[in-house]
């Protein structure tokens, strides 16, 4: 398919630069295909993301994602600053989940430097990490419903709960979204008994909210008809394309890094890994709801088991002049969006020699075209929304 000259009578270029669509094809197909540029300012792209979609009528025949609108070369910047210096910058990767970003980076550096983490700090990490998962999944559910046309109400219900968790984050770290909370070998500030009580209250009330939310939307006819059987991702393709996180498990692959790697202290908690059967948008939505219920169970266990007192930073942890010995490490965690990994190479200096983020948002989009081919253009929005990406992480 090559672009043809515009049909006679049509303006070659609009007043505002090149036209954003053109008609494709040779004589036989003249006018059959329409190329549409969706984004980068489309409200459903959750940031600045563009899809170059070719349509046959309403059916998608080609879709090419276009990245880079938010690119600032995070990796190069991190290679020019100290090891700890890029910790606050990891907050800006996936700005909904700064706690888990911090955790993944801290985990990779601890692996590189051979640094341990005190028990209480491990519990704090699990607590804030699972709270982050709640924040991310409930936001995703709200945004997905907004993409489906349920403008406002479900999203505001979701944000109401998110606010309560962000209040806790603000109290412990000073910032609601850009927490910059973890340090190599522990965390930055301890949780006071009052904060723990607050978290316990949130955890107690969250299942009732989930029940309410599910009663409102999970069985909704429009949701069912728009999501079921739409954007099916086959199991083998999901594994081959490196899809991770809820997307992979919705396709029926039992692969949760909290169970596989058992990083931190996840071997101390009992929880189930929900799996999807069909790999469609509805499975991805339900899987996140079910994961939130498991996160609540983990939070309950963590709050009960957590030691009353203890160190929150390893005594050998160095905040200043931190120079890990030469070597390399790949640390990964089960982030809310998938496998968030950091690949680090140290040459013994104050800066990383190589600093690489393995972004789940970016790699999960590899299969976007496969999921959208043959679907209606309106479903592209829904499928894209169910992937759950944040462009700060995809573009870095």
């Amino acid at each position: 398919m090559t672009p043809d000259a515009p049909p006679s009578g049509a303006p070659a270029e609009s007043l505002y630069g090149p036209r954003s669509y053109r008609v494709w094809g040779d004589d036989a197909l003249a006018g059959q295909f329409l190329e549409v540029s969706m984004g980068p300012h489309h409200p459903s792209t959750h940031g600045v993301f563009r899809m170059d979609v070719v349509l046959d009528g309403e059916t998608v025949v080609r879709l090419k994602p276009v990245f880079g609108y938010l690119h600032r070369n995070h990796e190069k910047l991190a290679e020019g600053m100290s090891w700890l210096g890029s910790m606050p910058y990891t907050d800006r990767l996936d700005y909904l989940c700064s706690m888990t970003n911090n955790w993944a980076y801290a985990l990779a550096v601890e692996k590189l430097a051979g640094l341990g983490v005190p028990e209480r700090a491990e519990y704090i990490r699990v607590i804030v990490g699972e709270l982050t998962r709640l924040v991310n999944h409930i936001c995703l559910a709200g945004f997905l419903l907004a993409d489906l046309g349920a403008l406002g109400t479900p999203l505001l219900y979701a944000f109401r709960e998110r606010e309560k968790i962000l209040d806790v984050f603000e109290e412990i770290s000073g910032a609601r979204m850009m927490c910059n909370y973890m340090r190599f070998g522990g965390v930055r500030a301890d949780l006071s008994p009052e904060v723990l009580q607050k978290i316990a209250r949130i955890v107690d009330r969250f299942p009732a909210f989930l029940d309410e939310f599910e009663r409102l939307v999970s069985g909704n006819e429009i949701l069912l008809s728009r999501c079921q059987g739409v954007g099916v991702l086959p199991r083998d393709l999901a594994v081959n394309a490196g899809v991770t996180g809820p997307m992979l498990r919705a396709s029926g692959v039992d692969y949760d890094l909290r169970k596989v790697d058992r990083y931190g202290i996840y071997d101390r908690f009992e929880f189930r890994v929900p799996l999807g059967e069909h790999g469609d948008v509805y499975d991805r939505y339900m899987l996140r709801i079910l994961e939130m219920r498991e996160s609540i169970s983990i939070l309950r266990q963590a709050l009960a088991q957590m030691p009353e007192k203890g160190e929150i930073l390893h005594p050998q942890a160095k905040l200043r002049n931190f120079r890990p010995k030469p070597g390399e490490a790949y640390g990964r965690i089960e982030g809310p969006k998938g496998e968030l990994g950091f690949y680090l190479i140290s040459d013994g200096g104050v800066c990383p020699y190589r600093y690489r983020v393995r972004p789940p948002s970016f790699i999960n989009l590899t299969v976007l075209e496969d999921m959208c081919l043959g679907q209606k253009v309106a479903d592209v929005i829904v499928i894209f929304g169910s992937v759950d990406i944040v462009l700060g992480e995809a573009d870095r």
Partner: protein
Amino acid sequence: MNAERFAAQFPGVQWDAATSSWIVPHEILLDVANFLKTDPEFRMEMLSNVTGVDRLPAKVKTKGEDGKETEHERPGYLEVVYHFYSVSRKQGPLVLRCRTEGRETPILPSITPLFRSAEFQEREIFDLFGIVFSGHPDLRRILMWDEFEDFPMRKDYVEPDDYEWEPTPHDAVLVKARRRQVADSAPPRHDA
């Protein structure tokens, strides 16, 4: 994981203890990857992470047989690092490294036909490190804009100071502006 069997299968593959990874000659990279993917003992179906590393030319010291240290020049190279995991056997990572010959015209085989997960990541490496992956179905810049010329993740990259060029009345800027104006007077490109 049976490392001995792996090493016996591919004599060209070399174990690097310092980084706990296998250095694979680029001629057999696809064979090795296919073996890892299909062999029932490895079953590394997921290529999780693909990334590039830039190594500038350096002076390295090696100890000869007589115990004398000799210093010699090590040529620079670019390197691609692959992290494989097995989803069905829940094991990994198995790390492969593949090095280019020199930094001028680095070409490596693309692993995308075997592992779709490499599609965007190889494009990113091409974009930021300038490694060309032969056999990649759609090798274009992905994060930087298409007209960008250099490779920003290379260690010897120098940032141009005219990203968002605007003529301002200063000497050096005026010289640069003149160069730009000559370039602009060339017929504009009409890319499809």
